[in-house]
């Protein structure tokens, strides 16, 4: 995985559905093909974010567990 050209949105400390809203905002502002990574400490994100990414037709590149939060890397597909 290349670490270049990804936009990181730190939504740690934000509650459901805050991190998802941050991601949607980020995706809207991004161009097709760009990578957005949202950081979330909210447990709802682990289900909500992959679910939304699939429904919205983007690509869930990966979910990475860190200490006390998770990183969700998403590629804007359309």
């Amino acid at each position, binding site marked *: 995985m290349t670490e270049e050209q990804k936009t990181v949105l730190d939504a740690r*400390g*934000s*509650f*459901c*559905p*805050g991190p*998802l*809203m941050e991601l*949607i*905002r980020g995706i809207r502002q991004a161009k097709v093909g760009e990578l957005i990574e949202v950081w979330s400490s909210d447990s709802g994100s682990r289900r*909500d974010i992959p679910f*939304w990414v699939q*429904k*919205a*037709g983007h690509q869930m590149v990966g979910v990475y567990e860190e200490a006390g939060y998770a990183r969700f890397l998403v590629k804007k597909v359309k």
Partner: protein
Amino acid sequence: MVDKMPNKMSIVVYSGTVDKLYPVAIMTSGAVAMGTNVELFLTFYGLDAFRKGEPQKNQKMDVNYAELAPMLAKLMKEKNVPSWYDMLKQAKEMGNVKVHACAMTLDLMGMKLEHLDPIVDDVVGAAEFVDNAKQGEITLFL
């Protein structure tokens, strides 16, 4: 953006206490995230909660949970949970959220649209709201 999902969620917002206004804001945000349009119908105490200046100072809690109120308020402050009003405003900025005031309640309280918070879009009657809600698959009462 999202296919084969209900196109609309309608909520009758009857309650004016913060513990009920949070689910209004959170469900609205969730709907917006999924590309679902939202229609809120503010009536009785729910409408009172949208009087100009009221969303910013409303601290009312359901009396059944009054003993929990100070603890919840403390936790929310500590954890920086945004107010229900800020959440709702954010959802409205991001998606298609319409906020309607109940005409009958407004008349009863002797108020007009200009007495309400600017987040409120218009004044509608119950019949119009129900007719509109019929076109959606989700209807909630809070």
